[in-house]
């Protein structure tokens, strides 16, 4: 990977930098790659910002001007230029005056390797750690030599650990049997894929019996740790899928459970929440990172109002007639879909993810939890707790529970059941809207979005027990986890089918679900 090697250090370094630089402007990719490698080999601190600028797409060429290579940043309608070597300001030019240096994947790989070599001695330990990890993948003798040199000088404990591992991976290939044995011992239990691959290759080619036995033992230990991490990862995937199911179903648990209303427009209420997020992001461009905090209450209100409107205009007249309610709400779902198609667009709309929801949390090299799923899991639990508190601690909650257990008695006690019905439906619809905000971050937002979740919502509510919030939570999480554990060997489609079959069989045994409602009204 590094052509010229470290012998260019010292007096040759300054000249080498200027010599290698024009190669970056060459049209052919192999020539650019050679230039990158030469620049990295100089070890010159000025080479680093040039390579980083090239990787970021900020390095441009100029026709007939000196210097021919410049770093350009957008400024107004044109570019503001800097000299890549001296960092001097070179003024402003218009768009067409400079041409970007194109990259391809091979060049990007070479750049990352070169930057890693140069940043190995960076003052920032985080940068050094990342450089060590990048070089761990690179088997060239120059990178290994750089790693060994750095290990001698390294003071920071975390970076030392990474360097020790990286050097051990390299030692697996070279050196005496004793060195290899020591490397195997160091790599015991390491979750880095490079460690596992190195051990696998070692076992295939090893001649020394002791080393081979030790390596096989180390590999078994690593594999068992990897299996546990894989299970933890699948559990996380299952919980995050479950949290989506819970969010989708919990509003339905209220309306179906408390009022016995089969609301086929529930998916569309979620879709309205997702579209509210889109409209909020359109209304506040540039505030994407905060848009969700505005969208959540907005979606609650919008879907809640739609819910109350649906209840007052249609559902109110159809109590005790579940088939008519089903048909009527199905019709309402079609109306809502078409409403969105005509007022906004028939196609999907782009809802952006805030920057704090992108990327993942790296627990260890084998386990990464994506932030968006993590936040949505926390959010689902938050919504669940909030709903539980509303039902257990507020006056409205008390009235809702009273009406659901025994409507006639509640009315006799002075509860205005019609008003409670409207507010309950509004609450369920509002929660659906909030679920829509969460869904907008995970999936495409289009008029048909609700259709994908209505079946799942009913599935969770029926499985968990109608009207029971804890049932919805446990049911949703169980179904999500079951689905994700089956997916690796059954595939996405078959896993879903198996889950549905399981629910059908479960309902045969326990028709009321996991946590059935109790009380005379429920039994009667």
């Amino acid at each position, binding site marked *: 990977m590094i052509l010229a090697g470290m012998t260019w250090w010292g007096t040759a370094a300054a000249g080498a930098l200027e010599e290698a630089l024009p190669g970056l402007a060459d049209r052919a990719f192999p020539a650019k790659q050679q230039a990158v490698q030469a620049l990295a080999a100089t070890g010159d601190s000025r080479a680093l910002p040039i390579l980083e600028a090239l990787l970021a797409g900020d390095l441009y060429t100029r026709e007939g001007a000196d210097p021919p290579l410049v770093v350009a940043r957008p400024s107004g309608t044109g570019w503001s230029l800097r000299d890549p070597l001296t960092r001097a300001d070179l003024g402003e030019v218009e768009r067409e005056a400079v041409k970007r240096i194109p990259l391809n994947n*091979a060049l990007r790989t070479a750049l990352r390797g070169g930057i890693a070599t140069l940043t190995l001695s960076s003052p920032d330990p985080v940068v050094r750690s990342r450089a060590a990890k990048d070089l761990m993948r690179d088997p060239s003798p120059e990178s290994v030599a750089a790693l060994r040199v750095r290990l001698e000088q390294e003071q920071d404990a975390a970076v030392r650990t990474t360097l020790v591992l990286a050097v051990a991976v390299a030692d697996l290939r070279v050196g005496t049997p004793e060195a290899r044995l020591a490397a195997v011992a160091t790599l015991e239990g390491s979750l880095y894929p490079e460690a596992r691959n190195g051990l696998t290759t070692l076992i295939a080619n090893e001649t020394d019996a002791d080393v081979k036995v030790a390596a096989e033992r180390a590999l078994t230990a690593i594999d068992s740790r990897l299996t546990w991490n894989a299970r933890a990862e699948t559990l996380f995937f299952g919980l995050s899928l479950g949290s989506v199911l819970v969010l989708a179903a919990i509003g339905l648990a209220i309306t179906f459970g408390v009022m016995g209303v089969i609301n086929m427009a529930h998916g569309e209420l979620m879709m309205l929440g997702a579209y509210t997020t889109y409209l909020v992001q359109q209304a506040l461009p540039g505030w994407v990172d905060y848009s969700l905090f505005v969208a959540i209450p907005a979606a609650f209100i919008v879907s809640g109002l739609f819910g109350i409107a649906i209840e007052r205009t249609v559902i109110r007249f159809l109590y005790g007639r579940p088939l008519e309610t089903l048909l009527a709400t199905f019709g309402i779902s079609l109306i809502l879909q078409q409403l969105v198609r005509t007022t906004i667009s028939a196609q*999907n709309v*782009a809802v952006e993810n805030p920057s704090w929801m*992108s990327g993942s949390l790296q627990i260890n090299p084998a386990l990464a939890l994506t932030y968006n799923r993590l936040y949505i899991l926390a959010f689902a639990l938050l919504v669940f707790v909030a709903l539980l508190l509303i039902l257990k601690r507020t006056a409205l909650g008390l009235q809702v529970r009273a009406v659901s257990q025994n409507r006639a008695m509640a009315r006799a006690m002075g509860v205005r059941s019609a008003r409670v019905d409207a507010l309950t439906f509004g609450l369920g619809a509002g929660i659906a809207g909030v679920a829509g905000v969460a869904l907008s971050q995970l999936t495409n937002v289009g008029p*048909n979005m609700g259709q994908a979740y209505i079946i799942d919502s009913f599935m969770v509510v029926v499985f968990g027990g109608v009207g029971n919030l804890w049932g919805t939570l446990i049911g949703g999480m169980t179904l999500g986890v079951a689905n994700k554990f089956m997916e*690796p060997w059954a595939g996405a489609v078959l896993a879903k089918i198996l889950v549905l079959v399981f629910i059908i069989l479960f309902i045969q045994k326990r028709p009321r679900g996991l946590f059935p409602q109790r009380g005379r009204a429920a039994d009667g």
Partner: protein
Amino acid sequence: MRKRDLIKRLVLGSGLALGLSAVLPATAADDTIKVGVLHSLSGTMAISETTLKDTVLMLVEEQNKKGGLLGKKLEAVVVDPASNWPLFAEKARELIAKDKVAAVFGCWTSVSRKSVLPVFEELNGLLFYPVQYEGEESSKNVFYTGAAPNQQAIPAVDYLMNDLGVKRWVLAGTDYVYPRTTNKILEAYLKQKGVAAEDIMINYTPFGHSDWQSIVADIKKFGGAGKKTAVVSTINGDANVPFYKELGNQGVSAEDIPVVAFSVGEEELSGIDTKPLVGHLAAWNYFMSVDTPENAAFIKQWHAFTKDPKRVTNDPMEAHKIGFDLWVKAVEKAGSTATDKVVKAIVGLETPNLTGGIAKMLPNHHITKPVLIGEIQDDGQFAVVWQTEGTVPGDAWSDFLPGSKDLEGDWTAPINCGNYNTKTKTCLGSAAK
């Protein structure tokens, strides 16, 4: 009594009005040639197909400015089959039997094409199909202006194997005929090239699938075994958006595990943030970034027509343009829009494509196309990293599947058959009537 008379009169009157309105447009239609547009404008495929509807409208408008066709104006009839495959067949029948269109430009997914194929063959209509597909088909009534596997899938795999040194393969697709057949062909091709079965991972997901966590994690693990791994993606429609987002979130970069997609172009990328996707690949026969005068003129015309300088152009749009140009030439040569005359006239006709070459209609109803591999840039455009020297003729029947090796499509006399067995010299299946 009075009220009932009034109601009777109202009903009769409105019935008469409706009847007239059904008849009148038919008489006015004699002065125009109708062109059908059969693309999903809603549902999971709308993300890809809506722009193709606009393309045909632009081509019709342009032809009308040149004076129409055979002295008549062209009229576009647009229907929305809404990503619903049975509805595609219904709408196709409506276009041919009721609207009496001379040709239909439409379909994207192979399942939609398979749904309408019997309708076109029964009613003897013409379909210009602009999208890359799995081959294994050559119908008298369809012109395949998109890529066959030998014009997209096989060259892409060759590029990955030879230029990038890929040793392990993930074939990820949506669960329907196109990815299934293409993956069958690719699996056979890879095994022929010596790739072991445990180095190939195949995975299918339903349309619109949005939970990619486990699959992307599996791809990461599969790719972490020390050998260079690539994903060959035949994922279609809006499932691509959460797929690429999940790749970005889980940190799968293009330098580690490149994804080469066959159904993702400029249009699918135009709605998402492409920064995490930079370096991933697509294989097509055209990219908007190709620098030729024909392409520059086409893009200018497109921006003027849509009044939106941000709209992008893509490969299926070029395929529609080529198909439309060839149809116009064939109609002018035949002097008629009748299906049989056009079919006879069109084979052998040539028209320039937008990348500086020529597209020629072959006897198997496929065309000649160049193959380009492009890397995604952070502005949603593709930078070409590899291309074929000239054009590649489309091969309807893959040479890598045992059942189709010996088959050729040839709709010219004397063979006149879509699946002619060159070894036994017989025509299997339906010959032209």
